[in-house]
């Protein structure tokens, strides 16, 4: 089984130096890409069917193709890596950032070249201090070896790459909010259109891609689109960094073929549930995805299959709900996070999420009222797609709406018995 993204990550996760990385075949895709027109690089990535690994799953090649090219395009153009990993339950990009920073930098160079960008940024979350340190070191090495800077490897292409350390806010992961953050403004989302590909950072054409997405680029260039598609066990191409956390025996991240099943991840890779804990459900792709239940264990973890099962692949890192954890407490924790992280820009999100948090807290504390479940249900619609400025609130209500669907009797029992049945366990 090939594991292109993690093959150079050592067991102790100490990153390779630039020399060791080159010995392992690193930076070859930069030479390859710079020898062809940028449009050809775009075409290869488009043909690979690579879809964005940040959660939305949009075709990366397609996204790039909206950037104005040639001499008429407004400059400078920007390429930005979204390494603001803050989706609760998600710990996949950290592995790539800490374990193989040169792979990400190589991906940045090829991607930036493909859209003719002259400035690149890695937007990294505040708490990722070790990753920031290692990236800074790797960027220094890449400059010293002329993979970055003026006239890269003797070509006419030049690229400057900088790290932007955020000051900590979930909404910065939304790509237009991220651009406002990079401009030094409050990181509220922007209206679309115009899309960032045309008018992004400082009003110039900009691509924002997730770190795992970018790490795939060198391997696609080196081995071709067909190789990339063959890595997968489903219609979605490539490998995927999958993760499992919660009451399983071996919580971790693994690089596996796209399309492994929920059951394989939990039972084989994560070693099954801890002794004394039973599986009740899982949110498959981070905090903002709908629950899957024991009926869904054989669902393939790819974009279309998870969508068909009523949820989203999201970040591919799942959190398991066990039978000793109260589902209302679980969802309350999620909604509390989203209420705190709402940027406050639009009313439904700013006012709706704190209301949901209060209702869930009162149910959990035994003060729930008849009618509360109905209010929660209404709000799952009112905060749903089309009613808010960005995807934060619609994402927030996904686990709630599905918790009400699958664990309704638990909600009802809390209200009827005026207590949390799990509290006496």
């Amino acid at each position, binding site marked *: 089984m090939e594991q292109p993204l993690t093959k150079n990550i050592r067991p102790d996760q100490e990153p390779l130096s630039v020399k060791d990385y080159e010995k392992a075949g690193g930076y070859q895709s930069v030479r390859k890409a710079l020898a062809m027109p940028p449009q050809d690089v775009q075409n290869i990535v488009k043909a690979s069917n690579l879809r964005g690994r940040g959660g939305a799953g949009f075709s990366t090649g397609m996204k790039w193709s909206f950037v104005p090219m040639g001499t008429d395009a407004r400059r400078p153009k920007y390429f930005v890596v979204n390494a603001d990993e803050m989706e609760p339950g998600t*710990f996949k990009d*950290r592995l790539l950032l800490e374990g193989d920073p040169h792979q990400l930098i190589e991906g940045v160079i090829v991607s930036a070249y493909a859209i003719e960008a002259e400035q690149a940024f890695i937007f990294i979350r505040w708490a990722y201090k070790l990753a920031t340190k290692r990236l800074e070191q790797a960027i220094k090495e890449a400059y010293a070896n002329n993979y970055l800077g003026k006239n890269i490897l003797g070509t006419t292409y030049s690229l400057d790459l900088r790290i932007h350390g955020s*000051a900590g806010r979930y909404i910065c992961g939304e790509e237009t909010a991220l651009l406002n953050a990079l401009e030094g403004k409050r990181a509220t989302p922007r209206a679309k259109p115009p899309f960032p590909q045309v008018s992004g950072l*400082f009003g110039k054409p900009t691509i924002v891609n997730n770190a795992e997405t970018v790490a795939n680029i060198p391997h696609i260039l080196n081995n071709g689109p067909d190789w990339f598609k063959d890595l997968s066990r489903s219609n979605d191409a490539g490998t995927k960094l999958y993760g499992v956390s919660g009451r399983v025996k071996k*919580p971790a991240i693994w690089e596996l073929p796209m399309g492994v099943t929920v059951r394989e991840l939990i039972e084989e890779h994560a070693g099954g549930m801890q002794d004394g804990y039973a599986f009740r459900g899982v949110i498959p792709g981070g905090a903002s995805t709908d629950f899957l239940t024991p009926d869904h264990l054989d669902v393939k973890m790819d974009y279309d299959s998870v969508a068909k099962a009523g949820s989203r692949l999201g970040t591919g890192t799942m959190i398991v709900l066990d039978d000793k954890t109260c589902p209302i407490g*679980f969802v309350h*924790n999620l909604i509390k996070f989203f209420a705190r992280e709402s940027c406050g820009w639009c009313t439904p999100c700013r006012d709706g999420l704190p209301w949901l948090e209060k209702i869930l807290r009162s149910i959990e504390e035994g003060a729930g009222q008849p009618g509360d479940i109905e209010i929660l249900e209404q709000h799952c619609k009112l905060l749903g797609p089309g009613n808010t400025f960005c995807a934060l609130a619609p994402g927030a209500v996904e686990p709630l709406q599905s918790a009400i669907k699958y664990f309704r009797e638990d909600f009802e029992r809390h209200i009827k018995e005026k207590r949390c049945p799990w509290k006496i366990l």
Partner: protein
Amino acid sequence: MLSDKELQDINAELAHAATKASASVDALNIVQRHQGWVSDEAMKDVASMLDMTADELDAVATFYSFIFRRPVGRHVILVCDSISCYVMGYNPLLDNIKNRLGIAFGETTEDKRFTLLPISCLGACDRAPAIMVDEDLYGPVTAETMDGILEKYK
């Protein structure tokens, strides 16, 4: 007044910034690295370097969770309160830390040694429950390992 080192670091950011304001978060991070927090006075000094009003800059500063606008202790303990840590024992761990230090979230111990704050998912879900002290990540943290961790920070 900003120190020479702070001025130097902020000017280094400004040298490559597309607009002065785009260096705002970097500049605030620099001040916080040197002073531990961002005072009203520092806010005014930085704002004038960025051609912003202090209020404009404060609007940016207060948007973020980790620009501190109040003094913090010598060390900041951040306890992950997101879902994986919640499932794996965040509540008992937090009770343990609170009892040990005698402070709640947002408070600083009397000897100014520790400030206690919540933080959203630390991306260490395979090591839940996780905490961060200053720039160091720990997990899984238990009541027993907490002693050894706190000992490292004087």
